[in-house]
């Protein structure tokens, strides 16, 4: 690998994404080190950042490739548009957020530190105009005094009309980082389940130990790791384990885990949520490391992992120190500096200064010096060099300063120098540097263990919070548990893994924990170096130390208030690098300790998850399941227009050539039925088979009217109430045998009614011998209506079947033999008011039935009709439906009060008798027709007394259902009107504020057509 030279030609083909400038000479990797790193120098990759073409290697992240190319400035900050660079090397990155990809795949706020490099990658900086280097919005810095904490609340108060006209548009223009794609997402997302005994979260030394222990013991183990590689800090900091170099140990550990069939390793998979009962959610970035997903491959996949035990070994996050200028490009976490050098062979700076208050930061010295760069100074406020690093001072002739960094000078190109203030005498000195590595200590990653309102516990010795009461079944280990040395991580992980396996009943041996040194770790907390200039706590939301102290002075002392008032920790990084510093500064300002101040509540997701990933495949036509009627394809062939009713697609009408609009088609269909014969698929109605010795008694209790008295071979209309007395649903129910009923529901309520019936059967009346079976999908049911319905049907049934009024009267039910041998159920029921039959055949014969009705009905001009014509005919007949059964109406409101049996208890009986539900001034169903016969009635319009001024005081009801009635040749409707039945013939006002219409209408009987019901009795 070390033989690689930059002049080696690019082996890969041209970039996939088109606008990487072809032919332009890529910038050389000026900051790439010759050392080994974990990158593949034989696989160079070309990418573009802000239109400039550069190269990197397979194994790079976008951030490491930018570091290797000497790029420091990668974005502008949220409020002040200050130049910003790369701060970390992980998913906690608050600053290096870029817009990835272009067109429909453009995604803002992608962390450059987690984005793997691929050939042809296109990224752009955000929040700058016109360019990153010359950003005109950085003028915001001059107005900094108005952008202090709570500035929205303080600045945009008045005048009120300015809010919509000026403030809001201005804020919307200025706010947000980057632009999301404006085109539909072309990618697919997936959702999947996984199950295991032991879930190990994070594959650093502790996680690997835990997975090895649990895996050897025989448990089913899933090890998830958000990085593309397993190893965690071992990839960056190395060390010696079991006498081996850490990378060699890692290779062996990986080999062993892979060899265990009960262990599954999932890389690029970030755990983001912890849910009840041991369910976890993780996001797998399946194809984010390539320009676009392979054919039939998804971009991302959400895993729901059900685990009996989990071991969270999610490591720790190094925290910044808050000092003036700490946000300048080139100020980087010390651990990130080591990652870029050791893992990616990319050098963040050639003259590095180190500012650390703890021993761990000192590791950085050796990394930098071995990389051939120079450590210009180590600034440690503790006045003493840690014993174990004493040798470095001599070896590298280190300049060690006991003090703090009090300011950082530099421009868009990053850090040029720092100001160091002596801790004893307060004298300052300036040191030239191009990279300031900072370590304020390590915060164990307590988030996942706190998602169930766990309260983390403060540990003085490491000046950090550690997990408190983790959710049931979860253990924490390693750095996530506050164990910050390699040896302790290996031991802690091993014992947690072994314990979890044993709790799951594994009987195998977990083996021995690997051994490594326990490096000493001491820290003297340093949160904030007071001084002039902006000292940033939250880089992503531009929250400064003075914002925190201002919030305290203004009374926002609670951490939850602090968070909302300053927006600290509310950006996409959720304050991973800023929350603890913010509350420490608040603690100091308010004279409380850090544990007294406390943390804000931790909530999922741990890291941002795209909405698309949550949706998975459930989008567009797959948003929900689609139910097709048995005659659907037949209807489609006959040109039906379909309408969505719940999950169903139903034929709405069947347009014919030359018809100018839907109304003409629907009117034709109605007239065809009323004058001849038509048919309609009504299979969507819910159907329930009710069987058992007590079936009749059961139905008596769920319907307001009696069914035990229904004769075998008869159907009856039934109405059921909720227990509070309001109408739940209606439908016809037939008695097929002494102990066998066939119940129908409305289309919309099929599911809820089934649930209700099961509740009645299983919970309320378990003593009844009755069984329920949903049969909605088993039967194709077609309504055949019109004066010629009988003639048509006669042509289809066996000649021996008697369908005359005498042989098969109105409301009769029986089985019939169809010509060809199929047995059907025939119901003499009518929704249209015409002589009508409903015929039920097994669902698989539905399409054939429709086809045969067309053939046999040809002599009668048979016409298929849709839900619109169905609706017109039911309104003409005054039958109530969904708009009237609207969850507020009683049986009496619908004009069906007389159906309520006085002889028996039924669901809703007692509550329906309450005063307000029986009040004489209730709104009841009436017919409504405009006085002006040419006027179109619209549903939703209000009914008021004639001549009254519209308003809540004069409102007397509203129009529920309307249609154009071909029989009356005018628009008619049903409505719910106060005392409506007493007001037949009254002229009322119709007020339609939505369409600004006012006109007069007459209250009439809801039965507009054939009120005596002569036609349906045929």
């Amino acid at each position, binding site marked *: 690998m070390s033989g690689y030279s930059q002049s080696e030609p690019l082996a890969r083909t041209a970039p996939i994404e088109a606008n990487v400038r072809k032919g332009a000479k890529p910038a050389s990797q000026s900051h790439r080190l010759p050392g080994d790193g974990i990158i593949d120098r034989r696989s160079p990759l070309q990418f573009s950042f802000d239109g400039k073409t550069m190269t990197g290697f397979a194994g790079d992240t976008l951030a490491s490739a930018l570091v290797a190319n000497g790029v420091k400035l990668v974005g502008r900050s949220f409020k002040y548009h200050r130049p910003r660079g790369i701060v970390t090397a992980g998913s906690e990155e608050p600053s290096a957020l870029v817009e990835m990809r272009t067109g429909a795949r453009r995604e803002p706020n992608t962390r450059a530190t987690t984005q793997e490099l691929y050939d042809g990658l296109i990224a752009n900086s955000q929040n700058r105009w016109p360019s990153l280097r010359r950003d005109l919005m950085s003028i915001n810095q001059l107005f900094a005094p108005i952008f202090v904490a709570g500035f929205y609340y303080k600045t945009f108060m008045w005048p009120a009309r300015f809010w919509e006209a000026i403030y809001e548009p201005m804020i919307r223009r200025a706010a947000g980082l980057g632009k999301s794609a404006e085109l539909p997402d072309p990618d697919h997302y997936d959702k999947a389940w996984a199950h295991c005994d032991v879930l190990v979260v994070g594959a650093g030394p502790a996680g690997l130990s835990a997975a090895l222990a649990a895996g050897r013991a025989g448990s089913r183990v899933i090890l998830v790791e958000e990085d593309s590689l397993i190893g965690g800090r071992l990839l960056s900091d190395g060390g010696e384990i079991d006498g081996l170099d850490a990378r060699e140990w890692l290779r062996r550990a990986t080999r062993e885990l892979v060899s265990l069939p009960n262990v599954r390793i999932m890389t690029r998979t970030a755990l983001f949520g912890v849910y*009840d009962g041991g369910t976890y959610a993780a996001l797998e970035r399946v194809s984010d490391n390539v320009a676009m997903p392979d054919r039939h491959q998804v971009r991302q996949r959400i895993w729901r992992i059900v685990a009996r035990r989990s071991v969270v070994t999610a490591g720790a996050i190094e925290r910044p120190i808050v000092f003036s200028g700490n946000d300048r490009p080139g100020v980087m976490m010390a651990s990130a500096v080591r990652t870029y050098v050791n893992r990616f062979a990319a050098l963040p700076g050639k003259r590095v200064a180190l500012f650390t208050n703890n021993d761990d930061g000192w590791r950085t010295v050796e990394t930098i010096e071995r990389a051939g760069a120079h450590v210009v100074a180590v600034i440690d406020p503790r006045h003493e060099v840690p014993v174990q690093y004493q040798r470095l001072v001599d070896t590298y002739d280190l300049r060690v300063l006991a003090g703090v960094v009090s300011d950082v000078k530099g421009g868009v190109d990053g850090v040029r120098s720092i100001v160091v203030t002596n801790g004893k005498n307060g004298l300052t000195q300036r040191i030239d540097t191009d990279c300031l590595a900072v370590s304020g200590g390590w915060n164990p990653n307590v988030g996942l263990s706190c998602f169930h309102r766990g309260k983390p516990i403060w540990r003085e010795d490491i000046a950090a919070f550690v997990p408190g009461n983790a959710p049931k079944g979860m253990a924490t280990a390693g750095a996530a548990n506050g164990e910050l040395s390699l040896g302790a991580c290996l031991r802690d992980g091993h014992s947690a893994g072994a314990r979890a396996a044993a709790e799951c009943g594994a009987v195998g041996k977990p083996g021995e924990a690997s051994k490594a040194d326990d490096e000493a770790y001491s820290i003297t907390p340093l949160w904030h170096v007071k001084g002039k200039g902006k000292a940033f706590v939250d880089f992503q939301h531009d929250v400064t130390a003075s914002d925190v102290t201002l919030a305290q002075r203004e009374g926002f002392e609670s951490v939850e208030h602090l968070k909302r008032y300053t927006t600290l920790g509310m950006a996409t990084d959720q304050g991973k690098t800023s929350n603890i510093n913010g509350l420490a500064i608040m603690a100091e300002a308010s004279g409380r300790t850090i544990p007294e101040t406390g943390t804000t509540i931790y909530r999922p997701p741990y890291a941002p998850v795209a909405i698309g990933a949550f949706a998975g495949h459930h989008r567009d036509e797959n948003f929900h399941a689609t139910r097709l009627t048995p005659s659907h394809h037949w209807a489609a062939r006959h040109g039906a227009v379909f309408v969505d009713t719940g999950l169903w697609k139903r034929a709405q009408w069947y347009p014919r050539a030359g018809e100018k609009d839907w109304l003409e088609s629907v009117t034709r269909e109605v007239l065809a039925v009323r004058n001849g014969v038509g048919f309609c698929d009504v299979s969507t109605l819910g159907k329930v088979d009710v069987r*058992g010795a007590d079936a009749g008694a059961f139905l008596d209790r769920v319907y307001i009217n009696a069914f035990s008295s229904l004769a075998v071979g008869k159907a009856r209309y039934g109405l059921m109430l909720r227990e509070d007395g309001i109408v739940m649903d209606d439908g016809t129910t037939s008695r097929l045998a002494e102990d066998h009923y066939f119940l129908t529901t409305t289309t919309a309520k099929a599911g809820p009614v089934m649930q209700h019936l*099961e509740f009645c059967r299983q919970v309320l009346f378990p003593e009844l*011998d009755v069984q329920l079976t949903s049969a909605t999908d088993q039967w194709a049911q077609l309504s055949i209506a019109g004066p010629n319905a009988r003639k048509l049907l006669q042509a289809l049934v066996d000649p021996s079947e008697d369908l005359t009024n005498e042989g098969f009267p109105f409301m009769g039910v029986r089985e019939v033999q169809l010509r060809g041998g199929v047995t059907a159920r025939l119901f003499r029921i009518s929704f249209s008011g015409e002589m009508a039959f409903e015929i039920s055949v097994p669902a698989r014969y539905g399409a054939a039935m429709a086809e045969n009705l067309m053939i046999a009905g040809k002599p009668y001009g048979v016409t298929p009709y849709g839900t619109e014509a169905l609706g017109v005919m039911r309104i003409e007949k005054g039958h109530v439906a969904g708009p009237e059964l609207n969850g507020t109406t009683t049986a009496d409101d619908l004009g069906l009060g007389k159906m309520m049996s006085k002889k028996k208890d039924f669901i809703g009986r007692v509550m329906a008798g309450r005063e307000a539900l029986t009040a004489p001034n209730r709104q009841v169903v009436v017919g409504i027709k405009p006085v002006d016969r040419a006027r179109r009635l619209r549903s939703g319009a209000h009914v008021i007394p004639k001549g009254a001024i519209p308003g809540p005081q004069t409102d007397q009801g509203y129009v529920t259902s309307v249609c154009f009635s071909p029989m009356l040749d005018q628009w008619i409707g049903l409505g719910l009107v106060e005392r409506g039945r007493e007001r037949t013939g009254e002229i009322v006002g119709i007020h339609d504020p939505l369409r600004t219409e006012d006109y007069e209408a007459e209250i009439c009987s809801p039965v507009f057509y054939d009120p005596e019901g002569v036609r349906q009795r045929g």
Partner: protein
Amino acid sequence: MRIACPFCGERENGEFTYLGDAAPKRPNFVVDGGESPERIEDAFYDYVYLRDNLAGVMREYWYHGGGCRSWLVAERNTVTHEFIAVTAAPGAGAASAMRAGE
């Protein structure tokens, strides 16, 4: 979260629907049996509307609509969401009906 249906085993909670407190019992009365209508109405009012809002373990009705369509009685901790026990409602899954009083 998964819920242990006594008929189907552990299933995803999305298959289930929550109804509420299993404590209130539907009042039993005989039509024209001499009981005062006010008393009957009061009893139904309590049954339909009045619920204890427990923080802790309570018995609740759940419906396994995405599975065996059984009504279940779950003992659940409303603070931790932990299911302690799930049993079938008296008439759930019964091959033959229970007799009253059983």
